[in-house]
C-alpha cells in the first residue's frame, strides 16, 4: 500500500441531542491512497456517512461535536483548519457525491450553471470559459448532446443523468479524493452499473482516490480494493476485499455475508439474516456493541469493548474477542 492521501484517525463525532448523546462515529480510523478505492459498508445508522461528511466539514456543529481524532490530508489536520482553508479544499481537492441525485441538485438553476459554479468558486475563470468547461464535463460523463443539456434544469434529467451531472460537478476540478455516499442506491440496477463503470473509468484516468460508502456488499466487492465494515459507530473489520469476503474475522461481517445471495457460489441452504436490530446510537450496548445479536457472544463480550487488532496479517483488522472462531461456512474452495 502506498502512502495514504487522506487518513482519518481515531475520529469521534458525537451528536448532542435532547434524547441523549448519539455516538455516530466513535473512534474510527481509515485511510485511502491515491487511485485506491476504499469501501465503507454498514447498515443505516452505523455512522458510515458521518466520517465522510466530517472529512468534508459538513457535519453540523452543533449539535455535533468532534470529541477526538484527526483528519489528515496532505499533512494538514482538517479538523483544526479554519473555515476558509476547508472551503478551498471542498469541491476542489476533496469532493463528494450523494445518495439521491433527485434532491442533490438545486431545482432552480440550470445544470450547466451548477457545474460552472464549482469551477468559478475555486478558479479565476470567466463565466463563459467556465460554462464551456461544464459542457465538456457533461460530455465526458456520457451525457449526449451536452451543449443543450447544460441549459436544462435538473427536473428535465433522468435519475441516472442527474447522478452523471453530480459526478461531472464533483470531478470538475480533478479532486484527489472523491467521497461517494451511496452513489447508486437511488438508481435502478442497470443504471447503477453504468454509474459505477463511469466512476471507475474516471478514476483510472485521473488517479482519484474513491471512498465508496454503501450498504451494498456486492458493489464493494466489485469495485473496491479494501473494505471497512462499520457497526454502531465503530470499525468492526477492515481489510482487502479477499481478506474480508473470504476470511471474515468479525461475526457481523460473517452475518452480512451469510445474508447475501452470491452469484459466485452455489448455495445449498437458505440465506441467514442477522437476528435483531442494529442498536440505537444513543444507547449502545456495553462491551462489544454487536454482542446481543452475536452467536459467538460470551461474558467477555458483554463486558469489554474489543480492540481493533490485526488478524491473519498486518492489514486485516477485526474488533472481536472471538475472531478465531469466526469461520465462513462455505469457503470458496468448498464450492
Amino acid at each position: 500500500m502506498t502512502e495514504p492521501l487522506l487518513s482519518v484517525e481515531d475520529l469521534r463525532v458525537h451528536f448532542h441531542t435532547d434524547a441523549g448523546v448519539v455516538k455516530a462515529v466513535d473512534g474510527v480510523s481509515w485511510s485511502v491512497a491515491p487511485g485506491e478505492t476504499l469501501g465503507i459498508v454498514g447498515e443505516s445508522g452505523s455512522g458510515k456517512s458521518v466520517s465522510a461528511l466530517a472529512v468534508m466539514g459538513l457535519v453540523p456543529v452543533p449539535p455535533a461535536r468532534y470529541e477526538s481524532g484527526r483528519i489528515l490530508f496532505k499533512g494538514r489536520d482538517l479538523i483544526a483548519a479554519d473555515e476558509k482553508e476547508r472551503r478551498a479544499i471542498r469541491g476542489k481537492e476533496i469532493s463528494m457525491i450523494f445518495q439521491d441525485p433527485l434532491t442533490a441538485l438545486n431545482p432552480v438553476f440550470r445544470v450547466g450553471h451548477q457545474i460552472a459554479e464549482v469551477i468559478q468558486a475555486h478558479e479565476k475563470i470567466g463565466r463563459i470559459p467556465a460554462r464551456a468547461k461544464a459542457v465538456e464535463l457533461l460530455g465526458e460523463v456520457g451525457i449526449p448532446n451536452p451543449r443543450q443539456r447544460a441549459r436544462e434544469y435538473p427536473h428535465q434529467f433522468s435519475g441516472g443523468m442527474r447522478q452523471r451531472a453530480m459526478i461531472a460537478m464533483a470531478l470538475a476540478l480533478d479532486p484527489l479524493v472523491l467521497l461517494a455516499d451511496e452513489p447508486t442506491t437511488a438508481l435502478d440496477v442497470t443504471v447503477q452499473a453504468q454509474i459505477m463503470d463511469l466512476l471507475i473509468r474516471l478514476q483510472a484516468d485521473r488517479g482519484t482516490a474513491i471512498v465508496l460508502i454503501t450498504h451494498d456488499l456486492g458493489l464493494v466487492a466489485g469495485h473496491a480494493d479494501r473494505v471497512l465494515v462499520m457497526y454502531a459507530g465503530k470499525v468492526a473489520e477492515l481489510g482487502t476485499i479477499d481478506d474480508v469476503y473470504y476470511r471474515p474475522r468479525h461475526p457481523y461481517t460473517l452475518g452480512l455475508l451469510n445474508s447475501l445471495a452470491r452469484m459466485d457460489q452455489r448455495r445449498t441452504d437458505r440465506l441467514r439474516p442477522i437476528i435483531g436490530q442494529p442498536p440505537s446510537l444513543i444507547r449502545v450496548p456495553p462491551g462489544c456493541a454487536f454482542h446481543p445479536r452475536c452467536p459467538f457472544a460470551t461474558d467477555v463480550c458483554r463486558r469489554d469493548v474489543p480492540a481493533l487488532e490485526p488478524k491473519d496479517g498486518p492489514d486485516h483488522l477485526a474488533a472481536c474477542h472471538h475472531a478465531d472462531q469466526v469461520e465462513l461456512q462455505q469457503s470458496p474452495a468448498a464450492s
Partner: protein
Amino acid sequence: MGKYVVRRLLQMVLVLFGASIILFLALFVIPGDPIATSQGEGHQLDKASHDAIARRYHLDQPLPQQYVGYVGRLLKGDLGESYSYRRPVTTIIREKIGNTAKLAVAAIVLEIALGIIAGIIAAVFRYSFLDVLVTLSTTVAIGVPTFVIGLALQNVFAVNLHWLPLQGQQAGRESIILPAITLAAVNIALVARLMRGAMSEVLRADYIRTAYAKGLSKRVVIMKHALRNSIIPVLTYLGISFGALLGGALITETVFNWNGIGLALVGAIQQQDNPIVLGVVTYGVAVFVVVNLIVDISYAFLDPRIRLE
C-alpha cells in the same frame, strides 16, 4: 405564455363582472336614502329637488335597469358621478390614487426588505437571540390592531419625540414614514414568519449540502441557492396580501389623515356615496387581479419546474 396571459386577462373580466354584481347589490340593500344623506344634516330637500337628483343619478329606475346602465358606462370607463362631490368618480380616483399608491409602494418595499431580511436572519440563526426577537416582535405586530400601531407610533415619534409629523402630507417626504410602517406592520411580520419557515426548510435540503460541498461560501449558499428556493411562498403571500393592503390603507389613511382613496372610501361609505364606493372597490379588485397575475407569471421565472399553461 402569451396565451396564458390572455386567458388570465379574460378571467379578470369575469372576476370584475362578478364583483360588480355583488357590490352593486350589497350597496343597495343598505337601508337609508343616499340623496338625503348627501345633503348633510339639518337640510331638508323638497320632493321636486329630490326627484330631480334621483333622476340625474338614475336612482328612480328599477335595480336591474340601474345595474345594466352601470355596467354599460363601466365598459366605457365611466364610473359615474359622486353624489356629494358632484364630480366624476374617475376624476376623484385619479386625484387620490397617487397618494395611496405611494403609501402602498412604500409599505411593500418595507415588507420585502424588512420581512425577508428578518426571516432570513431568524432562519439562519435559528433559536438564537435574534430569532427569538423576530418571533416576539412579529407576534406583537400580528396581534395588535393596525390602528393601535398607528396611534402608538404617532404618540412616540410625533407627539413625544417630535421626530416625524403627526399626520397629513404637508411635511414632505418624512410624512410617509409612519403611515408606511403602520400599513406594512402586519405584513412585515407575516412575511418574516413565512420566510423563516421556508428558509429553515430549504436549508435542510440536500442541494444546500451539495452547494456547501462545492466549496461555496455561506453567503452564496444562503443568498443564492437557498433564497431563490424559499422566496416562492413569500411571493405568493405578497400577492394575496395586496388585497389586505388596500383594506389596511382604509385604516391607515384615516389614522394619518392621508388623502388617498382609502380616506375617500371611508367618507363615501359614511355618506352613502355609492358611486365612489363602487368605483373604488372595483378599481381595487382590478389592481388585485393584475398584481396576482404578475405574481403568477414571476413564478415561472423563479422556479423552472412551474410551467404556465
